[in-house]
């Protein structure tokens, strides 16, 4: 009985927390948290699919999220014509050669017999391909990066509407996941974890260092939006009128309008994904996946193609993370590779899944909202807590100053405390698997 009520109660709680934020802080804040909460929920849905349902320990979420972000740049930014002229073709050719050499190596690996010859052939093909790629692409890359480096210096994107980047982000993440899955899915638990963690670091390294692709650490800013700009709204007479009729000043109205717009877009994506995930989970497919998670050996013996299923779910879960990544970059309107940190984009998502209840889609979604809410709100809370602790101390005392200087670090501490308390009283998550 209580168990049935858990989900509604907790979701009501989160809604309440957002309402509280809206009333006490501001609706804009509440909406910002809500929007990132939606994105977080999508990510944790993807991770839950992989871990909660298939038992795959993917600690490379960050990489897939970043790929989604890259998709937003590649789709939505306007192309940089001079850069294309300077070396776009050569770069693509170089990449194609690189890809081809890997493909050839893979076929050689399969066709040739085990032995020294094969090893040698592989090395020759791969190293040769690598150098050929470099020879062709390096000058082109230099040329591209030299074009107005402070504001472009990259190839730019396709200039399409950014919404297209969402599915494309999913596809790119899926593609990467497919390659990774093909090679690394044979690994067990923690070993797979560190492999994925490493691969995600590699993806970030590429984003940071390949300036021609997405400006590297110089960031791409001003990615076009799917929604109107606040400043434009504020100039739109019709909008101002409508806002006034609601009793809002144009600034508040425009900011709320845009955030609400994002919220609706994200919510639609989340609901669709949730519907798909729920149906999949509560079906023979979900049963098969749980069987595989419980006991791979037996599942194999019962005719289930464990390898293929693992690959399938790894690709799907990663694709969802990619979609979320594209959504996030759309919301931020910029891609900042150095902001991708495992703590934030991998471990925090894991915390969401586990706190919410792994194996349960609703739990994952709840965890996404709740943990994100805490992550944002914990900071003022930490300062508040510090204030309380130091209030009995006399002003200007060394201890007080020291403690207050440390208040900023209370965020992590408080977050840790919340996490531990939450897990202490709900070791299986807030909405556990049935």
């Amino acid at each position, binding site marked *: 009985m209580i168990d049935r009520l858990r989900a509604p109660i907790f979701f009501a709680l989160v809604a309440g927390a957002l309402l509280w934020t809206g009333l006490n802080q501001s609706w804009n804040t509440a909406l910002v948290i809500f929007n990132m909460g939606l994105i977080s929920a999508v990510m944790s849905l993807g991770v839950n699919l992989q871990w909660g349902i298939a038992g795959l320990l993917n600690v490379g979420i960050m990489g897939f999220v970043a790929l989604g972000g890259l998709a937003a740049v590649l789709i939505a930014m306007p192309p940089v014509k001079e850069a294309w002229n300077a070396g776009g073709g050569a770069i693509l050719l170089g990449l194609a050669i690189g890809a081809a050499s890997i493909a050839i190596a893979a076929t050689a690996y399969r066709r040739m017999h085990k032995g020294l010859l094969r090893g040698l052939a592989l090395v020759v093909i791969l190293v040769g391909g690598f150098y050929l790629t470099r020879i062709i692409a390096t000058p082109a890359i230099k040329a591209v990066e030299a074009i107005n480096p402070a504001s472009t210096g990259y190839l730019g994107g396709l200039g399409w509407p950014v919404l297209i980047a969402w599915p494309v982000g999913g596809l790119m993440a899926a593609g990467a996941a497919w390659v990774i899955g093909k090679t690394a899915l044979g690994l067990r638990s923690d070993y797979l974890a*560190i492999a994925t963690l490493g691969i995600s670091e590699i993806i970030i390294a590429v984003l940071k260092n390949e300036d021609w692709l997405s400006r590297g650490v110089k960031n791409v800013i001003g990615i076009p939006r799917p929604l109107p700009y606040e400043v434009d709204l504020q100039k739109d007479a019709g909008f101002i009128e409508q806002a006034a009729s609601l009793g809002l000043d144009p600034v508040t109205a425009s900011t709320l309008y845009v955030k609400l717009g994002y919220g609706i877009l994200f919510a639609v994506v989340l609901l669709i994904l949730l519907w798909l995930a729920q149906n999949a989970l509560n079906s023979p497919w979900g049963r098969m996946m749980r069987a595989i998670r419980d006991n791979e050996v037996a599942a194999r013996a019962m005719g289930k193609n464990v390898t293929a299923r693992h690959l399938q779910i790894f690709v799907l879960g990663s694709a969802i993370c990619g979609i979320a990544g594209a959504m996030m970059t759309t919301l931020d309107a910029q891609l900042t590779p150095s902001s991708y940190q495992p703590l934030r984009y991998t471990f925090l998502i894991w915390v969401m899944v586990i706190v919410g209840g792994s194996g349960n889609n609703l739990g994952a979604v709840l965890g996404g909202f709740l943990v994100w809410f805490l992550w944002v709100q914990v900071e003022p809370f930490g300062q508040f807590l510090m204030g309380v602790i130091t209030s009995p101390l006399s002003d200007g005392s060394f201890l007080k100053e020291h403690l207050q200087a440390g208040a900023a*670090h209370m965020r992590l501490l408080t977050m840790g405390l919340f996490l*531990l308390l939450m897990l202490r009283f709900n070791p299986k998550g807030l909405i556990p698997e049935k």
Partner: protein
Amino acid sequence: MDTLNALVAFSNFVAIPAVAYGSQLALGALGVTLVYGVLRFSNFAHGDTMAFGAMIVVLLTWLLQSWGVSLGPLPTALLALPVGIIVTAGLLVATDQLVYRFYRKHKSPPVIFLIVSLGVMFIMNGLVRFVIGPGDQRFFDGQRFIVSVREFKAMTGLREGLAIKTTQGLTVVTAVIVVAVLFWFLNKTRTGKSMRAYSDNEDLALLSGINPERVVLVTWLIVAALATVAGALYGLDKSFKPFVYFQLLLPVFASAIVGGLGNPVGAIAGGFVIAFSEVTVTYAWKKVLVYALPDQWEPSGLMQLLTTDYKFAVSFVILVIVLLFRPTGLFRGKAL
């Protein structure tokens, strides 16, 4: 002569730093591996445990230095180590009692432990910054070099110099000793065996009269010692800065895993594999080749296989390749 110069350049920029860094990683990896081996979870709080232990050592060293105590050529911090270990052990045991014990009782699966350790990490992280602040702290004293570049050049008359730092020497020696002792302890002593038994099958260990709480306690004590030693040595060699210890976690885990989780010898091997792969693949071989090759072959470019941008990528690629051919690491680790 030129070959010698090549060799020295190679040692100075590749071999020595890699060995020292490898030992540093190995010391960290030992702690991770031990927790994994006995308590069966990936302890993400280990980096911050190292930071905590090192912090205590730093504070004590300052105290000692203010008293004018010194160890001659060796860093004073070595004197502070034992106390640092004790305080860290206290912290870990308290954490265990307050946090982990509950999940052990409930027989929670390893990921729950992992996530819990993340929570612990957050808290320790805050704690350390809170006490000592986020900045750089220096506490090294004593003689900086065993051999310095200038001395070496003067001594040998070579064009290339060679430096070995005291801390590098200390780290390598400590790592080797610690591994040997740990290996002996786990495989030959009664307590060590009981720890392995506990990690293998908790219920059955209980039925054999092994006191699980004692095993856990001993494990944390050793982990405290390892973390403090590793943290302090690392801090001596570079400098103490809380955030770096968190960053260290990644290569440390990579080392533990390449070597095979749960296996102390693997931790050492893994540390070296990671360190060497990082340094060698991104090294610009020009300097060495200039000496080693006849003049007419002198390389025009830098002879760098990959730019250092991809340093981490390299170590992870190596890691993935190792795992593909030996799925549980070089030294056959555990898989949960």
